[in-house]
């Protein structure tokens, strides 16, 4: 973990690299692009595997339907677009034509969360995982770095059923080794501890790791999970977190209905812990550097550390 921390890569690159490898081996793998293939890193796939690639233009709803039709014949289509379009623009298409008939369609989206920072609020996607989490039959996944994302994309192709995959536009630190294994629906435990549990996903896992280091250096015992799958949620990991009595969730997503809500649902039913949700504070973003946007929402190493200390000092 230590030696790789300086290397940064966008997880959309992981999708582009992995989907090409998958498509070479399995001719049923298809990519449906909606005019932003190059940005979503499917360019090499389209060049090398043109028979498995379809660019339907700026028509996301149609892209979803075409993927559904392909899936009925045994293809494994990946619809590739930006997260805000791949969740909200085609939301009802996903519900009606993919999730309801439980078809083997993957929605693979770059530009998750605040990572399309300079593009402004129209392109930032802060509601996607929450909205799609509420649709039956859907699986919702966001890897924390390049290596885990590749593994999760591969696994999404291997399991049957609808999967929403969310990637970063911007480069984020590579935190896992190439050989590390990941399982959709099973949280990755990164630290064991008893004072507090931190559950993070996506591009905020790196921040949580750094915050954990600081807390540990100050003598706190911290449990840390990378909850790359928010649906199905790894309930065992949340239950283990409850044992500390204090839980912090961290996500690059609205604090409503995303990871923080998913964890809180378990806590509300099981009891035994206080939860603090760090994430987008139910407000739209703006054009700004990515780090500035995180800071405006308190999604920072410093705020995780401070929130943890305050929580640990609190009586349960």
């Amino acid at each position: 973990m230590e030696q790789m921390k300086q290397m940064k890569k966008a997880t959309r690159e992981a999708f582009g690299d992995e989907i090409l490898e998958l498509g070479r081996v399995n001719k049923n793998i298809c990519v449906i692009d909606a005019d932003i293939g190059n940005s979503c890193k499917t360019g090499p796939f389209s060049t090398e595997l043109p028979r498995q690639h379809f660019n339907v233009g700026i028509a996301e709803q149609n892209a979803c339907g075409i993927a559904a039709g392909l899936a009925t014949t045994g293809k494994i289509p990946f619809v590739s677009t930006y997260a805000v379009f791949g969740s909200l623009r085609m939301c009802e298409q996903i519900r009606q034509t993919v999730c309801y008939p439980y078809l083997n369609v993957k929605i693979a989206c770059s530009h998750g969360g605040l990572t399309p920072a300079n593009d402004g609020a129209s392109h930032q996607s802060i509601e996607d995982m929450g909205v799609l989490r509420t649709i039956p039959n859907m699986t919702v996944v966001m890897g924390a770095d390049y290596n885990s994302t590749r593994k999760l994309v591969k696994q999404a192709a291997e399991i049957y059923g609808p999967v929403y995959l969310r990637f970063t536009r911007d480069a984020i630190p590579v935190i896992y080794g190439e050989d590390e294994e990941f399982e959709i629906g099973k949280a990755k435990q990164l630290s064991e501890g008893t004072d507090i549990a931190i559950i993070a996903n996506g591009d905020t896992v790196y921040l949580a790791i750094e915050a954990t280091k600081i807390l540990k250096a100050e003598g706190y015992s911290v449990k840390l999970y990378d909850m790359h799958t928010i649906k199905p949620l790894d309930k065992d990991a949340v239950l283990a977190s409850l044992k500390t009595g204090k839980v912090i969730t961290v996500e690059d997503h609205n604090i409503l209905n995303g990871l923080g809500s998913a964890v809180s649902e378990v806590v509300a039913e099981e009891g035994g812990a206080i939860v603090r949700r760090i994430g987008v504070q139910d407000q739209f973003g703006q054009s700004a550097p990515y780090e500035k946007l995180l800071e405006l929402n308190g999604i920072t190493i410093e705020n995780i550390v401070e929130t943890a200390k305050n929580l640990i000092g609190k009586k349960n």
Partner: protein
Amino acid sequence: MKNITVTELKEKAKELRKTALTMIYTAQSGHPGGSLSAADLMAALYFKEMNIDAKDPKWEDRDRFVLSKGHVAPIQYSALALNGFFPYDTIYTLRQYGSILQGHPDMKKTPGIDISTGSLGQGFSAGVGMAIAAKMDRKSYRTFVLVGDGECQEGQIWEAAETAAKYKLDNLVVFVDDNGLQCDGACADIMPTLDLEKKFAAFGFETIRIDGHKMESIVAALDSIRGSRNELPKCIILDTVKGKGVSFMEDVAGWHGKAPNKEQYEQAIREIDGGLN
């Protein structure tokens, strides 16, 4: 394709109409108007044109059918029942708890349904996907899609249409049930669909308009496009009458989504048997 005469197909259309109305009457819920306007086409497709196998509903090489205007599910269920995809008596369970016959087509529950529909504008895209898959796999099956004229107000219809042209889907046929009425009234008042023939032609389709209740014309149109390899997707616009075959339902928007009472049902069956024209 099966060998069947036009006269026999006309009888099949009557059976479809009666079955659909019986389902809707029994359920006291459903959409009779659009079911009846599509009945003649459905007879031609399900008893003659389509290569399907009731014993093997998921046969890989079967022709696909997409009921994009999913609310007229009763007419498709009738066609499936009369073709033996499930026992005929299943029709009496339409829209009831636990039934395989949902209010709108459900591919997971009903044998012979190729894609779940019900939200307008979406089925056509799925049909385009199926036709693309046939091209990818070099298979000769065709995909038939039925959309409503009101449904063509959905923007996604036109996204799907341009995609069909781009990928040269001469194995795709879209039928427009142009009955002129939608839920709230006349399409011309709600949102004029303008010249659908010209619109589909502009979107790259080989387009014809026929009398959607004249079996001879339907069969001739299907004959004329069968085996076409000209790289053009096909559009057949059917001039139809909503509620066709039942005098008091014909051309009345109010019968879009309303079930008949006992007297109305009995009169409807008599009229269909009597061959009202």
